[in-house]
Each structure stands twice: as C-alpha cells, then as structure tokens.
C-alpha cells in the first residue's frame, strides 16, 4: 500500500494533475478568508464593469493632494483621450494635405501630435474635404489644445442657501495617494451582468461545482460498484440482468436522461445537491462495467476460493478479498466521474436546466448568465473566459491524475 502510493507520487503526470487540483482547492478555501461575504451580492450598478482597481471619485476629491510634476503626464493624458478613430482621422488629414507620412507610427502619440502641431492650419481647406470634416478637425484641434493647456476643474458644493460655492480647484498636477483615499476596491475580474464581483463568484462557483462533481462521483461510483460487484461475483441470472440494464444505459445518451429528469423536477426543487445526484444516477455504467470485468477475473483466484471454503460471508469476501484488488480501478473511475459530473452540470446549466439560480453560483450558471447577457459578443471576456479556464483546468488536472494512475496500474502503457 505504502509502496503503491510512493509509486503513484513518482508519476509526473499524476503529480502534475494533483498539484493543479490542490492549488484550485486551496484557492477555494483561502480566498474567501481575505474576501468574505456573499458571492451573489451585487457590487456594481450596471453590467460588466471592467477588471481593475476602482477609486472612489468622491473620496479622492476629499483626500489630501500633493503636487507632482511628471514629464510624461501631459502626453499620457492626451494619449488616453485620443481615440483610434481620431488617430486615423489625423493621418487622413496629413494625406489630404500631401504630407509624407511614411515614417509615422500612429501609436506614437508624441510624434503624431508634433506632426499635427507642425501641419495643422485651420485656414486651409484641403481639396475635396466636406465642411463637416473641416469642422471635425477644428473641434479635434481645440480639444487637443485644451488638454495641453492644462485646464483646472472646479469643485463646487451646494451651500445652505442653495447657491454653489467653490470648495476646491483641481489642476493637472494634483495627485492623490491611493492609501489616502477611503474607498479603493480592486475587482481583478470585474463584475458580471448582475454587477457581482466575478472573482468572488468564480471562487464560490468552483467550490459548488467541485462539490457537485464529488456528489455525482460518489453516487455513480456507489451504484456502479454495487452493480459491478454483484454482477461479477454472483454471475448467472443476476449478472445477465444487471448487464442488461447497464447495456441499455450505456447506449442511451446520459445527457438526454439528464434533461428529461431535471426538467421534470422543476426549477424550484432543483438544488445543487439534487442536480448532482441526478448526474450521478445517469453516469454509473462505466464503473459497473469495469468493476464487473475485474471481479470476474478475481473470483476464481486461490485466495478467494480459500475464503469461500472457510465459510466467510459474501460481505466479508467482497470487503477483504475483492475490494482491495479493484480499489485502483474504482478510484480511477471515481476521478473520471467527478470530472464528467462537473462538465454535465455546466452543460445542463447552459441549457437552462442547472441548479436553482438564486441560491448558489456554479460554473455552469456563470457561463449561462454570461451567454444570456452576450458577454462574448460585447467584449466582456472576464465574465466567461475565466469560467471556461477553470472548468478546463479542473477536468484537465483530474484526467492527468487518472492517466498517471493508469500508467502505474497498467504497466503495458508505461513509457
């Protein structure tokens, strides 16, 4: 036993999968300690806030400011407000004016502005340019001059008499230290369509999904193991009957059964545990098959016969003479069941048949929400990509562990 475990931990594939899986589990346990609270709580108004650090604008204006004179501040400010369309328009203007732009890089804001200052002449109207376009360039030029000129922003507060009174002026060189602002919130993965913190939700959903996989795995393994042991050990009619059932459930797509059952249960009764159990109920056939064939090869071994002759009970023979020998197969089948259970939940949820949506997030539900609110077409990658990545990583780590085990227990596959 000890030797087997050592061998298993010498398999690079198993260790690789194990490390990924444990890392996911640890994140699941540790992250909520730093960021407690209800993962379904809405933190942003409006959908899909971008990932990043949010600084309270209100608090920032109240916070004590320092004056910093940074040489590239102005360029950055202009660069940030100069859209791609503006840049293209500027190049168009240069072309219309017949200026050589072969050496110009439109992403180099400094060079672009330099050229603009050198060449823009509001009094000249290039040939063929519409007056709307001419006015656009005038506005663009004014905006650029404003940004460079360094306007000040005046904060005014409403006094008791209702009149606005200037309370603070903000110039382009005023800076506030993030630590001095009372409210700063980092949302590493932004918010989802309901305005929830995606990372927090993702961590919680991963936990729920792994739990669903585990429950489904346990249910499927228990059923499969029982059927496999009975069919393999007893043989005869019991074997025929169990194999009859198993064959039928192997061919009928489990996914279809899942749809039928979950739909019939109805949204109100569909908790995460119920969905997990149903997934387990439809996924046991592989375990039953592999356990059965293993038991058949074992049941006439000497040590089993000896037990039989010694008058040991069926239960005792199965527990002491058969189970230890098939344990590796059962563990491998269990790992696969967990990973396919997680996937099954995700697919069901995509169809709108996942667990009740108001209680807990699951990976499938998050994916479903992201798709419903078109996160994929409006560029909100943070709402779906991390979910896909987590599902893939969990499933990848489990399968890697399984491949590693397979190589240890089936030496013909060894490299």
């Amino acid at each position, binding site marked *: 036993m000890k030797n087997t475990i050592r061998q298993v931990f010498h398999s690079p594939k198993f260790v690789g999968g194990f490390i990924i899986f444990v890392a996911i589990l640890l994140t699941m346990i540790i992250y909520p300690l730093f960021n407690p609270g209800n993962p379904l709580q809405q933190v942003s108004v409006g959908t899909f806030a971008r990932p990043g650090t949010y600084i309270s604008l209100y608090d920032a204006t109240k916070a004590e400011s320092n004056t910093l004179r940074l040489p590239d501040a102005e360029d950055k400010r202009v660069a940030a407000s100069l859209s791609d369309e503006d840049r293209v328009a500027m190049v168009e203007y240069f072309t219309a004016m017949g200026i050589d732009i072969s050496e110009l890089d439109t992403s180099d804001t400094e060079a672009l502005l330099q050229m603009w200052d050198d060449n823009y002449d509001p009094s000249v109207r290039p040939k063929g340019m519409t007056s709307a376009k001419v006015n656009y360039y005038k506005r663009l030029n004014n905006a650029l001059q404003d940004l460079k000129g360094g306007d000040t922003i005046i904060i005014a507060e409403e006094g008791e008499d209702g009149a606005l009174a200037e309370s603070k002026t903000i110039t382009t060189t005023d800076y506030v230290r993030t630590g001095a602002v009372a409210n700063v919130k980092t949302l590493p993965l932004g918010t989802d369509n309901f305005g929830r913190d995606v990372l927090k939700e993702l961590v919680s959903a991963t936990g729920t999904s792994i739990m669903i996989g585990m429950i489904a795995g346990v249910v499927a393994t228990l059923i499969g193991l029982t059927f496999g042991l009975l069919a393999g050990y007893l043989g005869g009619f019991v074997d025929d009957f169990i194999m009859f059932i198993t064959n039928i459930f192997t061919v009928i797509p489990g996914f279809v059964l899942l749809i039928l059952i979950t739909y019939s249960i*109805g949204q109100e009764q569909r908790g995460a545990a119920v969905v997990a159990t149903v997934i387990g109920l439809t996924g046991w056939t592989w375990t039953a098959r592999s356990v059965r064939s293993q038991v058949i090869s074992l049941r006439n071994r000497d040590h089993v016969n000896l037990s039989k002759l010694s008058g040991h009970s069926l239960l005792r023979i199965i527990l002491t003479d058969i189970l230890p020998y098939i344990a590796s197969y059962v563990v491998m089948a269990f790992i696969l069941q967990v990973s396919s259970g997680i996937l099954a939940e995700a697919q069901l949820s995509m169809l709108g048949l996942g667990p009740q949506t108001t209680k807990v997030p699951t990976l499938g539900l998050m*994916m479903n929400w992201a798709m419903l609110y078109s996160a994929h077409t409006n560029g909100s990658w943070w709402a779906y990509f991390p979910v896909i990545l987590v599902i893939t990583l969990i499933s990848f780590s489990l399968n890697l562990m399984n491949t590693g085990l397979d190589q240890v227990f089936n030496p013909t596959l060894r490299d």
Partner: protein
Amino acid sequence: MKGYRKYFGKKIFWFILTFIAAVILNFILPRLMPADPVASITGKLAGGNTDAKAVAAIYERYQEEFGTNLPMYQQFLKFCKNAIHGNFGLSFSQYPRAVSDIISSAIGWTVALQLPAILVGWLLGNLLGALAAYIRKGFDKVLLPVSLFLSNVPAFGMAVILLVLFAVKWKIAPISGGYAFDMIPHLSWDFVKSVISHYQLPFWSIVLVSIGGQAVGMRSMSIYELNADYVKYARFLGIKDRKIVGYVFRNAMLPQVTGLALSIGTMVGGALVAEIIFSYPGLGSTMYSAVTSADYPLISATTLIITVMVLIVTFLLDIIYGFIDPRVKAAQFE
C-alpha cells in the same frame, strides 16, 4: 457466415431492446416525478395570470393533450401510436406549429453539422494519437499534454473561444445562425456560400474538442499494440518498421470504432450545447428555446429524436465494426 449472422442477430436484438427501453424511459421519466407535469406546465404557462377559470381551462387542455387523465398503460399506448405517426402534438411556444414540423426543420442542420464534425475529429485525433505513440520522444511529450488539455476544454467553451476570436475579434466568420439572417433558404450560390461560412466555426469547435480525446485514446491503444508479441515477431522476421507500424495502426484503429460508438452519446450532448452558442438552427438550439419557454412537447420529442439518432449511429458503427475486424468474427466461434 454463421458467425456473422449470430453477431448481427445479437446486435439487432439489442438495438430493438434498447430502443424500446429508450421510448419507455422517455415516456415514464417525466411522469414518475412527484409533481404533476401538467400542473407544473400550467403553472409556468399561466405565469401571472390569476384568473382561476383561465388557468383551469389551460390545465384541462394539456391534460387532454397528454392524456394524463387516462390510466398509465393507455397513456403509453397513445404516446407510442402518436410517436409512430410522427405526431408529437403542437408546440406551446411556437403555437400552432406542430412539434414534428419544428424538429424536421432542425434535424437536418444537426446531422449535417455533427456527423461530419465528429467523424473528422475522430480521424484527425486517431492520426495524431498514432503519431504520438510512434514518435514518442519530444513530440509525444508536447502533443500528449496538449491533446489532454484540448480534450478537457468543454465543447461550449471551445465554441465561445472560437466565436470570440474569429467572429468578434477578427471578424472573418459570422457570429451566429446557420445562414445570413436576411436570407430565405433557397438553392442559390449565395445561400450555399452563406451556409458554408456559418458552418465553419461550429464545425471546427466540435472537431477540435473531439480530436483531443480520440488522440489520447488512440495513443495508449497504439502503445499497447506496439508492445504486442506480433510486433516483436514481425521485426525479427526482418519486416520493415514502416510495414509493422501499418499493422499496429490498423489493429489499434479498429477498436476505436467501438470507442466512437460508445462515446457518441456523450459527444452529441456536448455538441448540442455548442450549437446554442452559435444559435445554430439545429436540435440543440431547439432544445434550448424549448427549455427556456417551458415547451414540454417539444422537449420530449427532441430528446426522443436525439436518442433514436444516437442509437442508430451506434448500431451502424457496431455493424461496420463487425465487418471490418476479423477478431469479431473469430470471437463468435468461441
């Protein structure tokens, strides 16, 4: 010949038996639930409608439609009779369209998408797996983890990634549908072109996902065969390695046919969900809209059709396998 007859006889017997079981399950599962399906459907349908009379009327209509007021065995007979005639009732959500009509317009899309995609994925996956098993060093070290990783990307995940990259970001493929939304299906070059360009993303997302799993399976199968005694024997008779590799691939590939038959149910499930991402006008999207609009007759009929299709494909693969692998014939004599 006797061996084959026995083999096919057995296969046909199992096909019919499984078919009957599938039909019974499809009928009985919704009815086994503690809640009255008609009541829950009526509840969903009536929504905010508080007019008791109207709710009762809806209830009675569906009770009539499903025949839940009849004894169980009569319900089943009615269900079978209707199913044989292709009569699955009327759709709730697309009233008064017949369910059979909705399904027959969707089924072609699904078959034309999934069958070639799964087959191409199977072929490519087997080639890669065989290559990995043969070349081993280096190539195998990279290819195997990549294949394993790819095979673990869920089908819908792959669909979303392809969609975002090719349709949203690079705009070289259409975002959704089976053809351009402003077109009416007809036989013309423009329409065919539109269908083909809409076909690419769903097709490749299914192919990519199935490649990984097949490659991993084929690799271990090939390694197993490469260690077989006949390989050593053939080598010591001076036969060229290239020829021996040919033996190995043939022998490893044949059981993969059965592997495909056994996994096709799972693959179809994933591929159906991938359809939703692309709003592809097949059975997956039909099922999705049926679920979201609580269209019970449509769900029931779609699941039945999918089951039947999977059963037929599995059966055909089994038959083909029996013809191409002499080991099957021999096993029948034992």
